[in-house]
C-alpha cells in the first residue's frame, strides 16, 4: 500500500465516525458511540504511523495526492488534494495520536452527559478538519480545515449551550478566529495574484527566487500572520482562548491546547520559505510572540480557576512558539508544538480528572490536599508541570531552550523576556500544583467524601502522555547534549529550514543555566508561598495591589475591547440604523412621498370651487400664452 492509496483514509475515517455518530447520536448506545468515535481515530493513527514510517523509508519525501477539482474559475484552479511530507506526517501523528488518547479519555469523562453522541461526532469532525488542515496541498484546502476546526471549536465550546455565557464564549471564539481568517484569506488572494496559484508546490519555488524584503512578500506574510494570530491566540486576538475553557475539558485539551491552536504555527512553518524572505514580518512575529508570552504569563499568576491558569499558560506557550518562529527557529517552535502538545494535553486532562473528582468545581480556592485522593493524576500532572517549567531532562526544557537560544542570537532583550516568562511559568504552574494537591482540603466535608481517583479510561491517557512529556525531548536532542537533532533533519525534508545557531556551546550552556535557575527559583518561591505559607488566593472582591489587580483582571483587555470595539460598533450600528437608515436615507425616500403629498394638499386648494377664481386662472394662462406669441412673432 503506497502513501497515495492510504492517505485519504486518514481524514475519511474520522469523517465516517462523525457521520455515524451524528446520525446515530440518539439511537446508538454510549458504548458503541465511544468505540466508534475512538476507534476511527485509532485506525487513523495506525495508518498515520504506517505512512510516517513508509515516508521515512522513502526517498521521495513529499507526495501530492489529487482527489478532485474543487473550484475553478478563470486562472484559478483549486484542486482538493493532499500533501504528505515530513511536516504533515508528523502533524498527523500528533493529531491522531493525542486525539485518540483524548477520545479515550472522553468516553469516561463525558459518560454522564446527555449529549454524549453529539460530543463524539463533533470531536470526530474536529479531527477530520484538523487533518484536512495539515494535509491540504494548497492554502485553500488548508483554509477549509482552518475554518472547519474553528467551527468545531465553536460547537464544542458551546457544547453546553443552555448556559448563555458558554454560548457567548463560543461565539467570541468564532468571531475572533474570523478576524484572523480574513487576514489569512487576503494573504491567500495576494499569493494568488502574485504567483498565479495557491498550491504550495507552485508558490514556494517561485517565492524562493524573490529578493528578501520584497514588499509583496512582507504584505503576504503579515496577512498570513494575522490569520495565525487569530487561530493561535496571539495578541491582540487571544482573549477568546481563556473563555474557550467553557467547553468540556477534553475539548480544551485537544483543541485549545494540543492541536487547533498550533495551526498558526504549522501554517507559518509550512510557509517558512515566504517568512524567511520577509525579515520585517519576522520581527513583528517575534515581538508579538514575546509580548503575548509575557502578558499571558502575568495574567496566569493570579488566576484561581484551574483551567484558566492552564489556558493562559497555553497562550503564553503559544507566544513562545511565535517568538521562536520570529527568530527563525522553525524547528524549535515546531518542537515546542510537539512537546507542548504532550504536556499541555496532559495537564488539561489532569485538570479534567481533578474537576471530574470535584464534581465540576474548578476554583482552586476550594481544592487542596488532593494528592492522596488522586495519586495518579497528581503524579502525571507533576510530570507535566515540570516539563512546562523547563526543568531538565523533561521535554519542555529542550524545546524551550532551543527557542531561547535562537532568541538570544536574535536579540538579548527577547531572550530576557523569554527567561522572565519561563520564570513566571514555573511559578504559576507550581502555584497551581500546590494549591490543588498540597495542604488541606478546602471544600465541604460532603464533597470530600466523594473524592476519588478517575477510572482507567481517564488515567491511561494521562500515563501515556506523562511518559511522552517526560521523554519527548529526545526527538530533537540538540548537539550540545550529543543529540542529532532528528526533528530538524526530518523537517528539512519538507523545506522547513531553521536558521543556524551560531552560538558557542558555552554560551548555550550558560543560557540554559540561567533559565533553569529561573525555573528553580520560581519553584522554591511558589513552595514557600503556598506550601510553607499555606497561602490561598483571596476572594474575588478582596482588595489587591494595583499590579495584582491588573493581572487578576486580565489587564482589562476584555473591557478595553468592549470599550474600543464592541461598544462603538454597537453604537455605530444603532446610529446607522436609527439615524442614517431610518431618518436620513429612508427619510429622503419618504420625504419625497411626503412632499408630494403636501404638494397635493396645497395644490388641490387651487381647485377652490369658485368659478370666478377658475376663470381668473384661465385668463392668466391665456395672457401668458398670448405673451409668448407676442414675443415669438
Amino acid at each position: 500500500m503506497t502513501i497515495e492509496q492510504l492517505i485519504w483514509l486518514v481524514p475519511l475515517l474520522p469523517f465516517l465516525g462523525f457521520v455515524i455518530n451524528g446520525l446515530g447520536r440518539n439511537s446508538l448506545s454510549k458504548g458503541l458511540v465511544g468505540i466508534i468515535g475512538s476507534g476511527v481515530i485509532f485506525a487513523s493513527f495506525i495508518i498515520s504511523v504506517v505512512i510516517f514510517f513508509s515516508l521515512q523509508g522513502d526517498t521521495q519525501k513529499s507526495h501530492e495526492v489529487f482527489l478532485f477539482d474543487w473550484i475553478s474559475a478563470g486562472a484559478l484552479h483549486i484542486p482538493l488534494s493532499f500533501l504528505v511530507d515530513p511536516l504533515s506526517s508528523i502533524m498527523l501523528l500528533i493529531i491522531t495520536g493525542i486525539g485518540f488518547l483524548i477520545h479515550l479519555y472522553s468516553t469516561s469523562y463525558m459518560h454522564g452527559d446527555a449529549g454524549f453522541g453529539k460530543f463524539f461526532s463533533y470531536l470526530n469532525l474536529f479531527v477530520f478538519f484538523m487533518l484536512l488542515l495539515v494535509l491540504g496541498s494548497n492554502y485553500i484546502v488548508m483554509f477549509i480545515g482552518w475554518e472547519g476546526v474553528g467551527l468545531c471549536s465553536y460547537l464544542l465550546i458551546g457544547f453546553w449551550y443552555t448556559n448563555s455565557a458558554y454560548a457567548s464564549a463560543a461565539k467570541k471564539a468564532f468571531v475572533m478566529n474570523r478576524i484572523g481568517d480574513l487576514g489569512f484569506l487576503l494573504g491567500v488572494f495576494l499569493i494568488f495574484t502574485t504567483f498565479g496559484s495557491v498550491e504550495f508546490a507552485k508558490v514556494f519555488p517561485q517565492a524562493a527566487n524573490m529578493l528578501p524584503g520584497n514588499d509583496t512578500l512582507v504584505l503576504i506574510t503579515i496577512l498570513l500572520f494575522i490569520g495565525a494570530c487569530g487561530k493561535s491566540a496571539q495578541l491582540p486576538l487571544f482573549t477568546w482562548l481563556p473563555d474557550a475553557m467553557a467547553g468540556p475539558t477534553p475539548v480544551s485539551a485537544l483543541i485549545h491546547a494540543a492541536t487547533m491552536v498550533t495551526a498558526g504555527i504549522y501554517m507559518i512553518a509550512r510557509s517558512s520559505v515566504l517568512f524567511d524572505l520577509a525579515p520585517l514580518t519576522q520581527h513583528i512575529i517575534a515581538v508579538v510572540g514575546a509580548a503575548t508570552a509575557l502578558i499571558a504569563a502575568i495574567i496566569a499568576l493570579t488566576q484561581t480557576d484551574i483551567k484558566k491558569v492552564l489556558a493562559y499558560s497555553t497562550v503564553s506557550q503559544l507566544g513562545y512558539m511565535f517568538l521562536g518562529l520570529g527568530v527563525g527557529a522553525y524547528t524549535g517552535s515546531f518542537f515546542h508544538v510537539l512537546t507542548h502538545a504532550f504536556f499541555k494535553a496532559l495537564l488539561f486532562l489532569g485538570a479534567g480528572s481533578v474537576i471530574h473528582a470535584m464534581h465540576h468545581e474548578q476554583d482552586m480556592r476550594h481544592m487542596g490536599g488532593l494528592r492522596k485522593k488522586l495519586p495518579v493524576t497528581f503524579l502525571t500532572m507533576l510530570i507535566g508541570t515540570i516539563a512546562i517549567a523547563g526543568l531538565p531532562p523533561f521535554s519542555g526544557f529542550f524545546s524551550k531552550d532551543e527557542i531561547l537560544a535562537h532568541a538570544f542570537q536574535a536579540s538579548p532583550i527577547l531572550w530576557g523576556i523569554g527567561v522572565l516568562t519561563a520564570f513566571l511559568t514555573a511559578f504559576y504552574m507550581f502555584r497551581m500544583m500546590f494549591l490543588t494537591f498540597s495542604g488541606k482540603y478546602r471544600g465541604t466535608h460532603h464533597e470530600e467524601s466523594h473524592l476519588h481517583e478517575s477510572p482507567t479510561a481517564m488515567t491511561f491517557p494521562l500515563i501515556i502522555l506523562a511518559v511522552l512529556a517526560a521523554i519527548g525531548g529526545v526527538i530533537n536532542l540538540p548537539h550540545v547534549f550529543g543529540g542529532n537533532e532528528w526533528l530538524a533533519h526530518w523537517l528539512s525534508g519538507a523545506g522547513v529550514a531553521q536558521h543556524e545557531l551560531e552560538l558557542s556551546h558555552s554560551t548555550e550552556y550558560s543560557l540554559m543555566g540561567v533559565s533553569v535557575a529561573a525555573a528553580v527559583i520560581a519553584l522554591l518561591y511558589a513552595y514557600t508561598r503556598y506550601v510553607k505559607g499555606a497561602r490561598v488566593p483571596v476572594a474575588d472582591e478582596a482588595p489587591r495591589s494595583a499590579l495584582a489587580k491588573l493581572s487578576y483582571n486580565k489587564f482589562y483587555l476584555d473591557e478595553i475591547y468592549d470599550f474600543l470595539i464592541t461598544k462603538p460598533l454597537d453604537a455605530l450600528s444603532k446610529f446607522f440604523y436609527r439615524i442614517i437608515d431610518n431618518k436620513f436615507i429612508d427619510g429622503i425616500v419618504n420625504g419625497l412621498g411626503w412632499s408630494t403629498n403636501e404638494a397635493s394638499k396645497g395644490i388641490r386648494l387651487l381647485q377652490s370651487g369658485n368659478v370666478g377664481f377658475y376663470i381668473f386662472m384661465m385668463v392668466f394662462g391665456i395672457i401668458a400664452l398670448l405673451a409668448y406669441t407676442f414675443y415669438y412673432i
Partner: protein
Amino acid sequence: MSTQVFYFVATLSIIFSLMVIFAKNPIHSVLYLILTFFTFTVHYVLLNAQFLAVVNFIVYMGAIMVLFLFVLMLLNLNKETEPSKSPLIKIVGVIAGGCLVVTLIGSLKSASITSPLILKNPGLGLVENLGKELFGPFLLPFELSSLLLLAAMVGAVLLSKRDEVEA
C-alpha cells in the same frame, strides 16, 4: 364720412359694453347690452353686411335679449340683489382684463394690416350671396346645426320642466 361714423360708433360700443359690465342692476346691464348690440348692428351696416345687421337686430336684440330680460324678471332679479365681489377681486379682474387687452392687441398689432378696408364686392353681405354660400358649401353644417337647436330645445324643456319622479 363713414370713417368718422365708425370711430363714433366704436366709441359708443366700448362705452356701452363697459356699462354692461359695470352696471349694478342686471336689468340695466341687459339694457346696455341691447344698446351695445345696436351699435354692432350699425357696424354691420357700415361693413355693408346688411343681412347680418338685420339678423343681429332681430335675433340678438329681439329674441335673445328679451329672453334675458324675461328670465331676470321671472327670477325677480331686477333689484341690485347681487352681492358685489370684493373691490380687490374687481381690481384684479380689471387688471387681468387690461393685460388681456394689451397682450391680445400686442400680439395682433404687428399684423399692421393698415390698409383701409375696401369693399371689393358691394353685394357681399346680401342675402343672395350669403344664401348661395350657406346652401352651397355650408349646407352640411347648416343642416347639422338643426341638431344643435333641437338639442337645445329638448334640453331647455327638460331642465325647466318640473319632474315628479325625483324626490
